[in-house]
Each structure stands twice: as C-alpha cells, then as structure tokens.
C-alpha cells in the first residue's frame, strides 16, 4: 500500500481490515420461534412455529402438533390448522377487521401456553407510487460506489397522525439465455426432437429477504416519500430487459415497528468502532406462568395494501443509466464449454456423465450434420429458476 494511502485510511479511523470470521458452532439452545401474521385480506393467514437451529445449518426445525388460535377482542376464537409441519393457517375465507384487536395463543405439545400482546389491526393506506432513480450508492461493506437503480415507495395516510410501515416485495424479471436450446435429446429414442416450449426466455421471481420498514413519526405530515426498497446494480441481470416490482405494504403499530427496527439493527450492525451491545430482541410473545422461558418472534397484525409496476431499462436512459451486461450464464468454468458433435455421436456424447446436463443449442444441417451443444446455464433459462410462463400483467 502506498504511503499516502496508509495515512488516508488511518485518518478516517478505518485503517482497518474486515475479514470473514469462522463462526464456531456451539450447542444451540432450543427456543420456540413464532412467525405469525394476520391481515385484513381474505386468505389463509399463516402462523409458522419452529425452533432455533444451529448456526452452521440452514434448515429450520418445525414445531408440529401445537394448537394455534387467534382471539379477537369480542372473544371470537379462530382456529388455525396445521397444513404442513410447523405451518398453521386459518380458513381461506377469513379476514381480519380493521380497528379490531387480536391476540394469538399457542399451546405446544408440551402444554406450554404462549400468548401474544393484543394488537390492533390498523387501516391500510394505499401505495401512492413506486418509482426508480439512477444513483450511486456505496456498498455496505466495501464502501465502493456502485451505479444502479434505486426503487422507492411513496405513501401517505389521512387516518392517523403518523404511521409505521413494513414492506415486502416480489420482483420479477425477464431472463434470457444467449443460446436457447432448440432441440431436446432423448436417451430412449436415441434421437433429438424440437423443444417445446422454448426455454430462451423465462420470468424469474425473487422475494425480499431483508427487513424493510419506514415511519412517519417525527415528520410534519403523515407522508412517507422516497423510502428505499430495492437497489439493482447496473451489472445485475434484473434490469437487462423488463423488470417488475410488486410491493406489499403493512400498516403496523409502533411496537411492531420498534421490534422490526431493533431486529434489523442487530442483524446488520457491526464492523464499526462503536458496535452496540448485541443480544436477542424480544417481541410481543410470552410464555404463561414462566417468565424465564424465551419466546422469539412476533405476532403481527396489519392492514395490507399492495401495488406493482413494470419497468423497462430504457426508462432510465435519460438519467444516464446504462446496462453493463455480463455473461452470467457460465456456472462452472470446467464444464461450461461448447461442443460440436456429429449427429451420429450424440448418443455417446450424452452418455458421459459430465455432458448430461448440456443442451443442444442448434443443429447445423447437411452437409455439416453437426449439433452445437451448449452448457445448461447458457441454453436453458429454467436453470436459473425462471418460470416459462409470462406473468399476466407483463405487457
């Protein structure tokens, strides 16, 4: 490192180095986790029950066989039934009523009674607009500036002096592979046939996997503007073609907001000189008669609204946005090679294990009589977990 650079880093107090640190797995205490939600929508409302799981694993342990009920302020009890291990849901015709208070109660198979605080269902407010802007944003870890589109949400409510919101989104984007497979090989018939449906264009979809929230507390009016929801860098494939963002907006109470905010801070904070005290964030659930028992999670009651919008990358061109396409289709450098195979040699070719998941991109007809075989990532968009069906709203 050059001398001046050393000094520069130092000056900022960030002449420091952040490196991965191996998480040493320790014995995990089994603690019950409640992920419950009730909204004003008519649909099955889901409560998921699970246990904490070891730090080096990624599969949660479901809590099966519990009795889950939701009670409203008038004493009406709604029963939830277990549809899959750990997943409990209401009848699909049920909807929460705005203004009513609800309480969740769980009785585990060990007869532990867990109940939530009473939570009021607040009226949803409409999403005023979803829009994007071309900006530069520093990377949260490296601090290096990245160019891309930041998508924002604007909303307001006339019903309350101030509101708290939580957001979830589903993004869909058109995904094209450069060498869409035209033929499909069959081992049984030892022949190739034209492929249908075509696998050149897919519609990938991803759900938000971070906690997003906003509040109008402390603002002059109950209007939230420019709440950043999603950032897409100019090299990400999401914006190569068309992109849609569907946003669900949960109108939540201030205690729910505080819980999500603390949880997000604890999840994301770190790496500064002023790291705050870490610990487990508690929600609105307690175990009856046993205050020492920790219950994680939250019973969220919210009014929900949603809205979606489809974007074309060209919309952002006037702002200077430019796509930097990269060949994202190479998934494995060793195997990702193109082959030209004589038509008569295709059976032998596909009997090699390493060639099994390759696709015939195209056939070069007589007099060449060869097949061009492409790696799967470059020839079949479903490899990228894309859906071949175009969403209804796409055009």
């Amino acid at each position: 490192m050059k001398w001046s650079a050393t000094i520069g880093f130092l000056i900022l107090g960030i002449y420091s180095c952040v490196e991965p640190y191996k998480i040493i797995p320790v014995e995990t205490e089994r603690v019950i986790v409640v992920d419950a939600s009730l909204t004003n929508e008519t649909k099955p409302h889901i409560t998921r029950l699970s246990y904490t799981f070891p730090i080096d694993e990624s599969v949660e342990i479901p809590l099966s066989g519990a009795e889950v009920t939701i009670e409203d302020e008038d004493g009406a009890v709604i029963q939830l039934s277990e549809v899959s291990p750990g997943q409990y849901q209401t009848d699909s015709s049920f909807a929460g009523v705005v203004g009513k208070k609800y309480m969740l109660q769980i009785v585990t198979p060990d007869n532990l009674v867990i109940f939530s605080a009473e939570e009021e269902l607040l009226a949803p407010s409409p999403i005023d607009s979803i829009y994007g802007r071309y900006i530069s944003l520093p990377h949260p870890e490296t601090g290096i500036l990245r160019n891309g589109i930041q998508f924002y949400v604007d909303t307001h409510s006339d019903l309350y002096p101030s509101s708290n919101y939580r957001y979830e989104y589903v993004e869909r984007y058109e995904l094209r592979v450069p060498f869409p497979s035209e033929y499909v090989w069959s081992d049984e018939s030892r022949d190739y046939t034209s492929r249908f449906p075509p696998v050149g264009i897919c519609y990938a979809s991803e759900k938000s996997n971070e906690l997003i929230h906003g509040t109008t507390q402390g603002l002059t009016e109950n209007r939230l503007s420019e709440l950043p929801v999603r950032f897409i860098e100019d090299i990400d494939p999401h914006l190569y073609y068309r992109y849609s963002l569907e946003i669900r907006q949960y109108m939540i109470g201030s205690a729910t907001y505080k819980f999500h905010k603390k949880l997000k801070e604890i999840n994301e904070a770190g790496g500064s000189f002023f790291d705050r005290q870490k610990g487990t964030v508690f929600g609105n659930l307690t175990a009856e008669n046993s205050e020492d028992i920790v219950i994680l999670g939250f019973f969220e009651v919210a009014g929900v609204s949603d809205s979606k919008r489809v974007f074309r990358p060209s919309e952002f061109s006037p702002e200077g946005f430019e796509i930097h396409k990269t060949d994202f289709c190479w998934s494995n450098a060793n195997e990702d090679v193109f082959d030209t195979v004589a038509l008569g040699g295709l059976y032998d070719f596909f009997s090699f294990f390493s060639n099994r998941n390759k696709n015939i991109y195209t056939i070069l007809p007589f007099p060449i009589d060869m097949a061009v075989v492409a790696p799967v990532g470059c020839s079949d968009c479903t490899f990228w977990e894309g859906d071949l069906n175009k969403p209804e709203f796409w055009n």
Partner: protein
Amino acid sequence: MIRISFYITALLISLVLHGQSSLETYSGSFDSVSLETVIKDIETQTGYRFFYRQEWLEDIQISVRLEETPIPEVLNTLLANTTLTQYIENNQVILANNTTITAVPAISSFFDKSRSAPELEKGFVFSREYLAGQTEDIDNAVYEIGSRNKFRQGASSTIAGYVREKDTGEPVEGAFIFIEDPFTGTSSETDGFYSLSVPNGKQTLLIQSVNMKNTQRNLIVLSDGKFDINLEVDVIALNTVVVDANREVNVKSAQMGLTKINVESVKEVPVLLGEKDIMKVATTTSGVQTVGEGSAGINIRGGKADQNLFQFDGSPIYNTSHFFGFFSVINSDAVESMEIYKSGIPAKYGGRLSSVFDIKTKELNKEKFSGKGGLGPVTSRMMVEGPIFKGGPSFMLGARGTYSNYVISKIKNSSLGNNRASFYDLVGKIDYKINEKSELSLSGYYSFDSFRLSSDTLLSFTNFSYTNALLSFNYKYMLTDRLHASLNSGISRYDYRIGYEQLASQAFNIDFNAQEAHAALSLDYFFSDQLSYRFGLQAKEHRINPGKKYPTGVESLITSDKVDNERGIEYSPYFSASYDPEGRFSFYGGARYSIFNVLGPGTEFKYLAGGSRVAYNRTDTVNFNAGEIIETYHGPEFRLSSRYSLNESTSLKASYNRTRQNIHLLLNAASIAPTDIWRLSSGHIKPQIADQYSIGLYKNYYGKHVIETSAEVYYKDINNLLDFKVGADLQFNKSIETEVLQGNGRSYGLELSINKSSGWLTGWINYTYSRSLIQLDGDFPSETINDGNFFPTGYDKPHYINSITNYKFTRRYSMSLNVVYASGVPVTYPVGKWSFRNVENLYYSDRNKFRIPSYFRIDLGLNIEGSHKIEKLAHSFWTFSVYNVLGRDNIYSVFFTVEEGEVSGFKLTVFPNPIPTITYNFSF
C-alpha cells in the same frame, strides 16, 4: 541553554574521569602570576588534570609559596579568596564558579540518617548586630524568621514558604530543603510550597534541587514564619542524579492509587503518527486500560468510560478524543503534568465514580519568548509562550491541526473519496503574579472535530461534528502564612451535531450540548508541618440539551422537535485533614457531601406501579415549572487514606472512598461513540454510587538508581450502574427510562508495578488483574439480563500488561519500547439462528459470555535530539516510531451480519500492519 551546556560538561567529565587516587604533593613559589599559570605548573609536576573555563581564571592573580603540600590543601590555598570551588575525583580536578559541586546529593544522605530530630538548644544572638553589615550576597546574609515576642528557647518553629526559580518566578518542585544539625528536611510541592519544623535559634538552611544552584540561607528562627527561597538555574550533575519528588511520595505519602505523568516523559514513549500524547502515555501506566485502537474510552479499575473526570485547570472536558480516539484532545506542549487518581481520591474532587485526571497547563515562561512545535505526517502543532511585557503577565498560545482532508483528496481510486475527517484545537493561558501573596490565571481551550462517512449503517448518520470549549479562572491568595485560599471558576461546554442527508426528504440535523458552570473555593490551612486542613465548597450547574432535531434543505419533511432540556445544580462542601507526624503513620481523612437538585422545567412520565417501564404502562405525565425541584439526591462521600511505614523504604497503605455521579453518558458500547449523549440523574435515573476499598504495599529499592515497586489490591461496589436493554434506542428518546437499566456493579483486582525513573535505562512494567461485573436483575424479562446473575461488563479485561522501556544510548540518541498485552474483551456470540419473515436472524448467547482473542502489540520509537550547541537558534529532535512492529492482527471486534437472509461472521482488525512515522519537533 545553560542546562544543555552543563550536560555536555558533565558528559565530558564522565568520559575523562578515570585513573587512581593518589596523595601527591606539590611544591612551587609564585609572585603575582595568573592562577592558570599555577595550575599548568601543577599539571606538569603531578598527575592531576584540571577542568575549568578559562574566563573564570583570567583575573585571578596569585602569590604563594608551597612546599610538599598535599594537592587538596594546595587547592584550598589557591582558591581561598576566589569564588571558585573545587571537586576532586581520583586525580581530576574540576573547578566551578560560584557553585558547590557534590557527588552525593543531600537527599541521599538524608535517607541514610534517621529522621528523628532531637530538639537541640542552639546558640542565639540577642543583639541585632548580625544585621549590620549585611551584604548583597544572599547566601551570607542573615534573615529573621518570626517574631521576637513569640520566641521560646528550646522550642521548635515552622518555616514555610515557596521555592521559586529566581529569574522566571516559576515554582520549583522537589527542591530539598534541610538543616544539617539536627538533620531534618523536606521537599517542596508542585507549587513550590514547603514547610519545615526546625529548632529555634541560629540555623543554616541548605537548599538543593536538580538543575538549580545549591544555596544556603542563614536564619535566626524566632517563631513560626514565612520564608521564600529563590534559586538560580544551574546543574550539578557529576553522577546523573534525578531528584524526583514522586519517588519519595510513593512510600512517604498517605495517598495511594496516584499516577503522576510529567510531560517530559511523554517524549520518550513511541507514538502513533508522531503525535506525542499525554493521554496515550497515561494508558501505559498501571491500571489504566483502553478498549483498543480507535476507542476513545479509558477504563480505570473496572469503571465505565464515562466515570472518569478529566479536568483541565479545574474545568471538565467532556470528550477527550479526536478522530475516534486516535488522538487525545490535549496538546501535550501546553501541559505541565497530569495526575491520575484511581483510589483514595481526595475530598476536593467529585462528580465521577472511577478516577480523576487532573491536567494542569504549563507554568509559563515569565522571562522570555519561547516556543515548541512538531510536524508530523497527519498533524502539526505549535505553542508559544512568554511575557506580554517585562514584569507583566505571561501568555501561552497553542494550536494543533490536521491536514487529513488534503491527504484523503490525494488518494485516487478509493472508496474513501466521499469521506472527510478533520480536527483542530486551540489552547491559551494568561497568568499574572500580582504580588507575593496573590496570583491569577485564566486558561481557555477549544477543540473542533468533524467527519463525514459515506456509509454507516449502524449510526445511520452521515455527518458528525463536535466541539469542546472551556474557560477556567484560577486565583490564589495567601491570607496568612498558614492559610491559603484558591478560587476556581469556569465554564465548560460540549456541543455536537449529527446529520443525515442521504435522502433529501428526510435530511436533518440533531444538535446536542452539555454544559457545566462551576465555582469552587478551596482553603488550605497549614496548622503545622505535620497537620494541614483543606476545606471548601463547590457548586456546579449542569445544563443538557439531549437533542434538538430540525430539517435541513428545502425538500426535507422532517419536523423540528426537541427532547426537554435538563438542568441540575450540585453543591458539595468538603473538609479534609492530612496528618503526617514524623513517624511510621500518616493519615488523610476527608468528607464531601453531595447535594444534587434536578430542576425544572421538565416533564416526567409516571408508570404503572408494578409494571415494566414501557410506553403502554405510562399512567401520567407530570410537568414541572422552571426552577422547580423535580428530585433531590444527596449523600456523604467519605475519603480515607493512611500509610504505615514498615521501614524507611517500605510502607503499607489503605484507603476507602465513596464517589457519586449524577451525569451519565448513555454509552451502549465498550467504546465512546461520537453520538453518545450525556444525561443527568432524574426522577427515573438514580445517581451512580461507588465504594472502593484498597490496600497497597510500596517498596523502593535505593541504590545508584531508585526502583519503585508497588502492589495494590482493590474492591469496588457500585450501585445503580447504568446499562441498557438490547437494541436500546438512545438517540432522540423522550422517555429514556424505557431503555435504561440500572444494576449493581462489582469490580476487583490487583495492580503490580515496577518503575525505574533514572539512569540510562528507564521505564515501567505493570501487570493488572481486574474484573468488572454487573448484575441486571429486573422484575421483567426485558429488564433482566443473564437470568439476573453477575456477568462481565463489555470492558472486563482480566489480564493486562503494559510496559514502557526507554534506553538512552547517548544524550542524543534514545530508544523506547512499548508493550501491551490484554485479555480479549467479552462479546455476545450468536449461538443459533431463527427464521422469521423469510430472513435468518441470530439468537444470541447470554450477554458477554464469550471473549475475542487476546491483544498483543509492541511499538518501537527512536528519538534523535539535535545538536546541543548553545548558540543554535532552535533546538530540535526527530522521532521515528513504528506502531505494531510485529504487525499482529489484533481483533478489535467480532460481528455477525445477516445479508440477503444469510448469516456471516466477520472480524474487524485495526492497524494489522506496522505503521512507521517520522515527526520533527522543535523548540526555541
């Protein structure tokens, strides 16, 4: 300059002194020849060599006849009627002019003899004849002390006064004042004050001090009286002798847990980025711990970082660090000394639980204009001082600044482009000695820090700035010889601002400030040289603005809002007595009474009795008018220290002190963050109270150099120690009581220290074992941490070793080594994951159950002083230092984040590579 020339002389002497002693004789006859001629003849006839300055001998004519006379006698004869003095070692003769040269300082012989002083009857002249024919020569003049009417034959009287430097009037600390028969003596204090009990009658008072000419005063002691002594600068340094008042204090004083740092020692410690820093030196001393690089907090004996009182000429400094703690706000060139009290805190100090850092600005040069400065790679500093006019007040001005923004702008292709950081500080002082009895001084300090981070998800802010500003007025008046008064008043203010501007619609600033205005009257009554009293009254007014938020920019939708201001007044009368009889035992006892009134205007929320303190349990809101007392907290604070001497060089000490703290920094991390807020005790936040008990064994080994050793154990009990709920939101919080937890704290430990402060090799090694625990056992799960059991605080470091070694190769070259080892700090570790809303979250262990790996660092420094030529316009020295020579990856923190639903672990290391620095320092 004189000092330096003498160092050279001494050096030369030490190089040429060799050979054996002989009892040679000399014969010669001269009539009216120069003394030099005689000396040259002695040199040719005998093996003796003479060292002198030619100009001393020029005008001396000698007529003498000597036959087979031993050399010492020859010299006595030759120098009889001159001002020259002699010192013979082996067969080297050193001549000096007007200076008594000693190889063994009186202070050493003092230790050799018993201190018992039988009250001998001394001859006494009842006539006033001795006053006749008084000469200009103060050494031979006779002075009357006390009043004839009060004279009692055979009794003793106390002489008290100040020892000062003749030319500058600056107090001389550590001067040894004694009489030879009976041998009894004392040394002067920081302000030059001394008091000595001597038998009435004719006495010769002898005064020795390093760098000062030895002198004597002929006294007629009639009764108690005042007697000031002015000393002339000189150096008598044949063998390197450093008289250090502290080393005697170590075993003789009742005070324990005191570390005194002289600004001179700062020079010898290797530093980061070349900025010599008294605060950094403090962290190398026994029992003073820091969390690590880049952390502003200092932890003393298991205390939290906000439990230390930093006083600058009597006014508090709220934030003592620049640049996240990489530099301290104190410009070391402006400082005379710093005293750190860790236990046995004297009654005149109060307001913080753990320690007092009493920083005194330098005594100003009253004779001539002079200055100091330094140029480093990131910062530069400059300080000038001198008299405003001859005989008038003196001034000092110092400034320090950084050119970091310039350096940052030179770094290309880096993510730092958007970041900015800079600071500067200014210090000034005027002091004026009005007359013999009174003097006043006014000091001021201002510091400014500003930085901007392009991304910081934790703090959620982008712009930060803060300022410290203080003004301190000190007036000393000697009411009588025995009763001295001092008045200190001042104001100190800390302002900071945080801002956010990432989203124009939500751009805002929040301003905070904390202010203390205080006045204190302190009286010292010297009843005798064994017993003295100190008493006084302090009043402090605290004002805090815990947050005022306002929109910035036209697009911002943020509403202006503020958290109620806080105001409190604290009165503390105190009284203490210090009793130090000539014997094995000495004692200090003090009491302080703290009365703290929380004043309106203000709003206080009431909560459901028996319910947890959360918003939905709020039952009532009480409003208080301006000046109305919201709450009063009061209580005594006793301070006791004692010393029992096992022998001349060993003593055992014990102390107890209680301290109370009514101003709290909402510190939710081990390190102080620039966004931390000060709050006062209130209806919901109770004062923190600590009781500390400590015992120590002190032993000095006297030889050619003194080696001080000490061992102290302590136990501290804290009530209402402040902590917070997990994820507490402390920014702009109007009901902070819903996030605060208060519990019991407990800390204990052992501090071992070895210190050698003179000779070519100097330094210290300290080992500290300390534990710091807290118990948060509330009535509700969110108020109970770790099942209500005691657990380690975030700054609990059981093992801590720090050491400084300094080796002087020559007068010009010295090298220093700094070694630090510390146990890793406790961390809360994730022990599991849980899935919620499609995101993986962390389930954490009990608070502070694990520890990060231990910390180890070695720094190396090399000081090269410029030539010591007297004629040089400016003197200079170069400092080369290498921070973290081993390049060890010391982990500052371990943290875990959830990104895109996945958990990953990271470690943060600060300065993982060695960092070299060069600094140029100069003085004129």
